[in-house]
């Protein structure tokens, strides 16, 4: 095979694809052909590169040059300059907001610098639909190693020694869970990969599957060997069509190669994997509900014990791990527990993948060593807050987690520290909030979610969350009282203590943490009837600044036309006025005015 001298790694992650990265790819291929470079330069589609904020993006290898915000019209110039004449194009490179000096190489960009890639080791380097490329990065070497040189007990010991803990939320030691499953009575055992990814603001698991599905499969085969399981299931969220498609392709390829199926790699070990699609219920991410859903039943959680490790799928011992947990396994086997446990802190080993979103410059997917401070994630990797706004809080753990305030930005990211701060590691959602985010609204937002998603089986969760939500709504509408605050806290604690499953047990966390760290915001809503962040629209009064409207906007009338209640009057060149009697505070006028003439009082 004639080698290529350059590979253009075009990101085919969801965000870049939505930004038309496939059109960029086509344009590149066309231009490369036009310049007669098509036998020297290859264009490759990869999974999510991680730096979604710069998409659509590509990385030019071997030089490692990073181009972001690509547009089709840039392509002819880019191909001629860089690939024909060897002059990388500066104005398509990443420019950090504060310096304005372009950074050519991906690895010199702050976003990538602090990261250590284990679960995401192949991101941007392989085409996820080509098993050979996975093998080219020593894929399935871990499997080979366990099949040829390790007993199941040795595998379990290795995982235990590595200190790996579950990445799906609770952080249970993976090796211990495997040991329990192995020791459980019964010939027939199952393993499950939890790819339900319920956190409403996160996409780690999806990205892992989309960019490197074989890493999950290999982890599962190794686990099956260690635990003596013969059948595996991957339970994947319904809204992930691309991940599902890549997973199915990967399974077919692995089966063709005999890496799953009968007599794997010629050994006498056999194991197969099925995929089950979720049907849209957050609670099905909870392990007992997930099992019921695979059995074709309602996704209702069950009380534990018995734990799935003794009685799970169809009553058989079942081990459930999260996508990211599985993706770590091959590397731990390949490089050894010692190597792995060097990374991270005393109690939290290795790395964690986070989806870093919200009011942050470098939105994207990051993998960082445990123990890194929140500050490093937000300000170094994340590049700080856009538009010169002030950081207010970071939310971790999704609807089960909490909001951590600015004072605690030095907190190291590990299971214990986050729990002590009232939040949790969770599955890896990290939402950054700035001064324009209202913390009462955020608490209410998460409860809207958990209220809708509560399966309704137990009363504290079903009724309690609805009541919390009702009280919070009251507060955001300016109807709250001081007694409500007390009630909120009491109720939250009761729900925490008495709910059947993790959904109810953790649902009050967003309320409790925001009350703990942002009490003044609650008070502002209750006593001053004001929302300091101006998010709770019922507490806002919208007015039009006559001066700006007339002089800058010339009475453009956009707000008048957009107002659903016809509450705005005015004419061309004349300042408009809002009739406060008619105004329903929908906020549309504020949003649509290009001249910032609408203000909130």
């Amino acid at each position, binding site marked *: 095979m004639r080698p290529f001298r350059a590979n253009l790694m075009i990101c085919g*992650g*969801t*965000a870049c694809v*939505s*930004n038309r990265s496939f059109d960029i790819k086509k344009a590149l291929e066309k231009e490369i052909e036009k310049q007669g470079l098509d036998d020297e330069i290859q264009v490759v589609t990869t999974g999510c590169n991680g730096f*979604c*904020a710069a*998409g659509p993006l590509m990385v030019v290898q071997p030089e490692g040059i990073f181009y972001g915000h690509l547009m089709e019209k840039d392509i002819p110039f880019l191909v001629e300059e860089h690939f024909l004449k060897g002059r990388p194009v500066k104005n398509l490179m990443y420019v950090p907001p504060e310096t304005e000096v372009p950074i050519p190489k991906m690895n010199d960009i702050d976003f990538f610098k602090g990261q250590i890639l284990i679960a995401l080791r192949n991101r941007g380097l392989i085409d996820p639909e080509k098993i050979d490329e996975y093998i080219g990065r020593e894929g399935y070497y871990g499997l080979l190693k366990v099949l040829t040189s390790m007993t199941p007990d040795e595998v379990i010991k290795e995982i235990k020694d590595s200190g790996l803990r579950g990445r799906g939320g609770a952080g249970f030691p993976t090796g211990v869970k495997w040991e329990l499953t192995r020791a459980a009575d019964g010939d027939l055992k199952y393993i499950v990969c939890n790819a339900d990814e*319920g*956190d*409403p*603001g*996160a*996409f780690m698991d*999806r*990205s892992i599957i989309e960019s490197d599905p074989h890493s999950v499969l290999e982890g599962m085969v190794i686990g099956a060997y260690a635990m003596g399981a013969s059948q595996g299931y991957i339970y994947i969220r*319904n*809204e*992930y069509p691309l991940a599902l498609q890549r997973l199915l392709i990967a399974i077919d390829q692995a089966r063709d190669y005999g890496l799953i199926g009968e007599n794997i790699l010629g050994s006498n070990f056999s194991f197969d994997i099925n995929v*089950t*699609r*979720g*049907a*849209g*219920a*957050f609670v099905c991410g909870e392990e007992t509900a997930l099992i019921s*859903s*695979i*059995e*074709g*039943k*309602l*996704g209702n959680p069950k009380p534990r014990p018995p734990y799935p490790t003794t009685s799970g799928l169809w009553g058989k011992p079942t081990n459930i791990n999260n996508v990211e947990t599985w993706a770590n396994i091959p590397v731990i086997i390949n490089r050894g527990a010692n190597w792995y446990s060097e990374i991270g802190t005393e109690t939290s080993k290795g790395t964690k993948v986070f*989806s870093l*979103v*919200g*009011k942050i410059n470098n*939105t*994207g997917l990051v993998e960082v060593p445990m123990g890194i401070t929140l500050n490093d994630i937000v300000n170094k990797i994340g590049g700080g807050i856009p538009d010169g706004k002030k950081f207010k809080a970071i*939310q971790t753990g*999704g609807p089960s987690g909490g909001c951590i305030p600015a004072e605690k930005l030095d907190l190291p990211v590990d299971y214990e520290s986050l729990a002590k701060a009232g939040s949790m590691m969770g599955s890896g*959602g990290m*939402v950054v*909030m700035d001064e324009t*985010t209202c913390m009462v609204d*955020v608490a209410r*937002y*998460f409860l809207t*979610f958990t209220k809708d998603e509560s*399966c309704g089986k137990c009363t504290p969760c079903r009724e309690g969350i609805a009541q919390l939500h009702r009280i919070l709504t009251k507060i955001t509408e300016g109807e709250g009282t001081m007694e409500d605050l007390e009630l909120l806290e009491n109720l939250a604690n009761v729900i925490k203590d008495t709910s059947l499953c993790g959904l109810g047990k953790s649902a009050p966390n967003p309320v409790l943490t925001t009350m703990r760290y942002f009490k003044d915001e609650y008070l502002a809503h209750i006593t001053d009837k004001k929302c300091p962040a101006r998010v709770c629209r019922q507490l806002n009064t919208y007015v039009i600044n006559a001066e700006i409207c007339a002089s800058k906007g010339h009475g453009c009338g*956009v707000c008048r036309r*957009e107002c*659903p209640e016809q509450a705005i009057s005015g004419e061309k060149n004349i300042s408009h006025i809002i009739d406060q009697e008619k105004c329903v505070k*929908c*906020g*549309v006028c504020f*949003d*649509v005015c290009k001249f910032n003439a609408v203000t909130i009082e």
Partner: protein
Amino acid sequence: MEKQKVEQIIAKHKSEPSALIAILQDVQEEYRYLPEEAMAIVVDRLNIPLSRAYSLATFFTAFSLKPRGRHSIKVCMGTACHVRGSGMILEKIERDLNVKRGETTDDLKFSLDEVYCLGCCGLAPVVTIDEDLYGQVTLVKMPKILQKYS
């Protein structure tokens, strides 16, 4: 509704109660809702009570018992989209199309739903219509986007 199609869907799966969710998902995909006749055939073949299919159909958000619109609008209500104002976008669509979230317009043109995180939070707020994804949607842009669909 053609009986045959439903039979074909059932034939693709194991005739076991455990396949119920997967079969209903395929039926939903075919008809964009679960027609009563189709559910009757499914439970008959799997030899289970109709109530079981109903309980699943009402539990999971992927299923609908009413016919859905030709175009499916989904507004992301994920955390990132929420903090960047997707709630106002949703309200705007509700007003403009005179339809509530979770429902379908009278002319069966649009169905409007909330979804949670589509994995492109960098583009928040995000709206999808059928297979098309729109990022950084604003109140002003929204009507123009809707106009593209007939």
